[in-house]
Each structure stands twice: as C-alpha cells, then as structure tokens.
C-alpha cells in the first residue's frame, strides 16, 4: 500500500515544475575598502570633526598641552594648532579664523569641518573633503573629488556641468540612451537630484563602483547627439546633449527592442591554442589563461544564468576560424564570447577591450544599415555577424561596463568585425579581458581569486545584457 503512495509522491515530485530561479543575485561589485572616513558631529548649526579622527585621517602625530588646552597635529613639515574654545587655528605660519570655535566635547577637542579647506595642499598631506551624502569627512583618492552636477537647459543643447579635480580622467563608458555612463577617477562628494524633469535628461544616479565614480544617466529619444568637454583649467567636465544630430556630435549606441533577451545557449571561444600561443608575458601564456577562464566562466554561467555553455576547445589544440564558427553555429548560440588577453607596445595602462561588428547609427536589431524589416539583404557569409551588430554592441557595453564597475578598466569598445567572429551567425564579441603586458593586470588575473572575480564580472555583464532593463 505504501509503495504506490511513495511512487505517486515521487512521480509528483519529478513532474513538479523546476523551482524558480533564486533571488536575483544583485552582485553589486564589492567596493574596495572605502576611502578613510570619519563621521561628522552635528551641534546645532555646527558641523564638527573630532581631533582624534582628524589626526587619523591626516596620519598626524598629536601633541597635547593640557595646561593651555592646545592640541598640535604634525604631518611631515606641517603643523596644525587647535585651542579649545577658540575659533582661531594656526596652520603652519598662518592664522585661520573658523566660523565657530574649537569645542571640547566628552574630553576630546572637535574642530569645525571648515578647517579642512585650510589645510596644506601639498602631496605630503592627505586631502580631505566633506561628503554630504554620508555626513562624513573622507580622505580623497588620487583622482580627487567629483562634485554636484549642475543642469543647464538651453535652446537645442542641454548641458550637465560636473566639477571634478581631474577632468582628464572622465570618460564615457556606455552610450545607450537608457544607460549612459560617465566614469571619473575621483570620489563623488556631491549631491544628486532625486528626479529630473528636464528632458532629454530623465534620470541620473550613482552606480556602485570599486573605485572612482560612475554616473548613469537616462536620456529620452529627444537627445540625438552628445559631446564631452573636459576643462582642466576650470576643473570641470561638461556633458552636452543636442536635440539635433550633426558632425560635431557623437552618436548614441543603436538600440534594440526593449525587454529581456534570449540567453539559453552561450558559446565560449578560448582564443588561440595549439601552435598559436597568443601573447606571452613574463611566462604567462594567453592561450592557457583563456582556456582556464573559459572553464570557470562555464561554471558561473551555468550556475547563475542557467544557460547551456559550449566551448570551442577544451584543451590545447589549434583551431582555425572556420572550425570555431561551425562550433558556434552548430550549437545555435544566442551569444558568442571569444576570450583573449591583450598585449601591446610600450607600457600599457592595462584594462579590457571588446571588438564587435560595427552598427550603423540607423541600425536597429536584426537589421542592417537601417533597412526596414522584411528587406532582403545580400551578405557574404563571412560577414553574417554584422546582422547582429546592434545586439553585439549592447553585449559589449554591458560586459565592459561590468568590468569597469569592478575596477578592471579602463575599457575600450572597438567597432570592427573581429577575425574569430567571421562566419558566426550570432551576437558576439572578442573580449580582451585584461592586458598581460601590464604588471597590474597580469598579477590580478594570474591569481586564483582574480580570475574568478573576472569570470563573475563577465557573467554580471551577460546578465545585464539578458535583462536589458
């Protein structure tokens, strides 16, 4: 009697629909240990910082003279002298008057945060800034500070002016209107509006990033072109959006249809192999590293994205471009990633790049050169990847953006049909995951944790491409 019941229960279990995917892993990139910071103490209208915190942030030595209630902070050849209940502070040879006196609270001196604007500005002293978002004082990174953006709406052109200590480090890292991303090397210590109704800018927010600042903007279709102006002398970056396209304006990324994309089958193509070693740098060989990365990626994709993954090679063998294309096409890939590690002349900074088929400004998904759906286009099979140029570009931006947010940049997108994608009938890209000639990159990817982090970052990018939200 029990046996049929057990069998029925088992049958029910087997017939049950698969459990839904677990909660979407937010995989917010883990920030590197953030900048050194200290909380601000609010006393009525006064914002104060404790002297002990101040000394810690400045990496200063403290000298206390209880008889006169003076605290001296010494940093290299500089000194700051605070006196209890006195608004006058000595900084080196200068006397600075603060808006309110230094207070003694709980046995510790507290100075108004206005003091940080009067500290010595040479490289021997940590540069401090007040971060209103966290109500704290932070030690700025070498990239300096990024301030509050200001929106200026004009006739035909909308400008977003962003104060930045190092405008030369600002770069556009994603060009889709819905996810337009601007990267800075500095720390964002400004304030963003909760919402904006000044079209074409419909939204702006801060993305979590391992280092630096990434602002993501949402733009309406009224924006036809953009331009990034870096003013080093004035320490500001101006992002201009035009309602009219033209030669003076850069174009946005072509857009595909909204909604999630299919990502059931992923083909990973570890670059080179066999007689073709690829780049070799300090004993690190590209073909081996690419294969190792592909194997890790396979596990990550299967686990997190529940997609089937095929590798064009699973060992060290020579494959020609036709064999790679056949493998991808036979698998009916939704996406093809050709995995490489770069090498370059000179002393490269490192970072990642992606090569994908060029998409015309007038292109939309599944079309070529702006031709409407249903149009018949003759295309050599060699160039079949060009059919998927719009999706390929979206894939490239999603993956590169993910690498950027995890401090694996700088990243570059190059719109050229890459050799390994000749004859591949699917969206795809050649991904140079890191630069082996860069000591920093090489060290990162040759560590076990580093390669795993790289795989996860790529999968995050694939997930963003799939969600297309």
């Amino acid at each position, binding site marked *: 009697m029990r046996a049929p019941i057990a069998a029925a229960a088992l049958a029910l279990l087997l017939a049950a629909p698969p459990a839904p995917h677990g909660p979407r892993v937010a995989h917010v990139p883990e920030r590197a240990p953030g900048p050194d910071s200290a909380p601000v103490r609010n006393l009525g209208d006064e914002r104060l910082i404790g002297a002990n915190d101040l000394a810690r942030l400045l990496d200063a030595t403290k000298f206390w003279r209880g008889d006169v209630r003076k605290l001296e902070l010494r940093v290299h050849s500089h000194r700051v002298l605070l006196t209890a209940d006195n608004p006058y502070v000595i900084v080196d040879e200068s006397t600075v008057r603060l808006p309110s006196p230094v207070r003694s609270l709980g046995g510790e001196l507290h100075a108004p945060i206005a003091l940080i604007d009067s500290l010595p500005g040479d490289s021997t002293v940590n540069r401090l800034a007040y971060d209103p978002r966290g109500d704290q004082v932070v030690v700025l990174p070498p990239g300096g500070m990024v301030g509050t953006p200001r929106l200026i709406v004009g006739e035909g052109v909308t400008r977003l002016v962003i104060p930045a200590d190092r405008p030369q480090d600002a770069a556009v890292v994603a060009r889709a209107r819905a996810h337009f991303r601007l990267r800075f090397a500095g720390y964002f210590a400004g304030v963003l509006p909760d919402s904006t109704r000044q079209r074409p800018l419909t939204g702006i927010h801060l993305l979590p990033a391992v280092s630096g600042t990434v602002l993501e903007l949402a733009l309406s279709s009224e924006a036809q072109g953009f331009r990034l102006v870096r003013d080093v002398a004035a320490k500001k970056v101006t992002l201009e959006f035009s309602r009219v396209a033209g030669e003076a304006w850069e174009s946005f990324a072509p857009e595909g249809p909204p909604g999630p994309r299919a990502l059931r089958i992923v083909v990973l193509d570890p670059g080179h192999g066999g007689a073709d070693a690829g*780049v070799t740098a300090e004993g690190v060989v590209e073909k081996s590293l690419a294969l190792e990365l592909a194997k890790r990626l396979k596990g990550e994709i299967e686990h997190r994205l529940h997609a089937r993954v095929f590798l064009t090679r699973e060992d060290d063998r020579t494959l020609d471009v036709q064999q790679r294309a056949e493998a991808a096409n036979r698998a009916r890939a939704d996406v093809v990633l050709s995995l490489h590690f770069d*090498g*370059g002349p*000179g*002393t*490269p900074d490192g970072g990642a790049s992606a090569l994908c088929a060029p998409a015309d400004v007038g292109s939309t998904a599944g079309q070529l050169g702006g031709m409407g759906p249903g149009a018949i286009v003759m295309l050599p099979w*060699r160039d079949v990847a060009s059919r998927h140029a719009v999706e390929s570009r979206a894939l490239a931006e999603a993956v590169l953006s993910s690498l950027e947010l995890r401090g694996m940049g700088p990243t570059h997108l190059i719109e050229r049909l*890459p050799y390994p994608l000749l004859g591949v009938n699917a969206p795809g890209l050649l991904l140079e995951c890191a630069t082996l*000639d860069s000591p920093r990159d090489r060290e990162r990817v040759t560590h076990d944790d580093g390669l795993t982090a790289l795989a996860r970052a790529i999968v995050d990018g694939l997930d963003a491409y799939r969600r297309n939200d």
Partner: protein
Amino acid sequence: MLKRVIVGALIVAVLAWAVWRLSAPERAGAPLPARPDSMSTGLRAARLFFAAPSGDSLVSESRDLPESGTLHERVASLIAELVRGPRGTAVGLLPPGTLLLHVYLDDRGLMTLDLSSEFLSGFRGGSTAEGLTIASLVRTLSANVTETRRLQIVCAGEPIPTLGGHLPLDRPLDVQDW
C-alpha cells in the same frame, strides 16, 4: 743645340698633355659624375606613424627621406624607416627584418603591399598591437602615397587571413577606416 731640342720637345709634350686633360670630357663621351650636393639629391618630408609610449594610440613623426623615383623605392624607404623605428619616445611596431618585396598601385587607388615573412613571424601578439601595426602601415602609406585609397597586405606573395588572429586581412583595408 741638342739640349734646346730636348727642352722644346718636353715643353710641347707638357702642353699637349694639358690640352688633352682639359678636353678629355668632350673627347671621351662619358660625362664625369656630377659632384653630389643637396640641390641635386632632393629630400622630401615623410610622415611616419608609430605607437605612443602608452601603447594606446599612434603618434606621427616627420622625417626627411631622399626623394625616390619609383613607387617601389618610395614605399621601400617608408617601410625601412618604420622598421628602423622612431627617434623619440614613441614605440616602433613593424617586426625587425620586415622588408618590402613588391608593391602595386592600380588606377583605383588599391595598393597591394607584399611584405617579407618576418612581418608575420615576428609579430608577438595582442589585438592592440595588431590594430596599431596595421594602422601604422595604413596611415604611413596613405599619408605619403596620397593616391592610396585601399590597402591589401600580403606576405611573401601569399594572402594572409590575419596578422595575429584578431583582425581580418583577407580584404583590402579602406584607409578612411583607420
């Protein structure tokens, strides 16, 4: 008397020799080579493209090269200068030993460049290096042989599908794209 005859004969002989020496170019027919000078050699400024020290872009360098009569000589000297490398802090891109074997330029601006096998065997890899190497060739040749509209690179007489496995070279490259 005899002494006078001998002296006279010697004088006549010296004079005859001097006349012969002065009239030799007209008599011999073969012109004497002109003494080299900068006015007759001809130098022409050439623009060469190398990698920036950061390895992420190209920089140009101007160099005076002897003016060459034929297309082969012009292009060969450009290739030789690219192989020789930059004079400043820029970085050379063409592999050592790369030579020009043949060059053709048709009336529609298609230049076919046949480089020696060192071009392929000496390349050390990487898509950045590959892109810069190709761009260096395209820009140098199009800047100095202005009739060039497209460039087809072959190696030791054979078409090459790619230089390092990242960019296709099976088709002519449009100079506007580089």
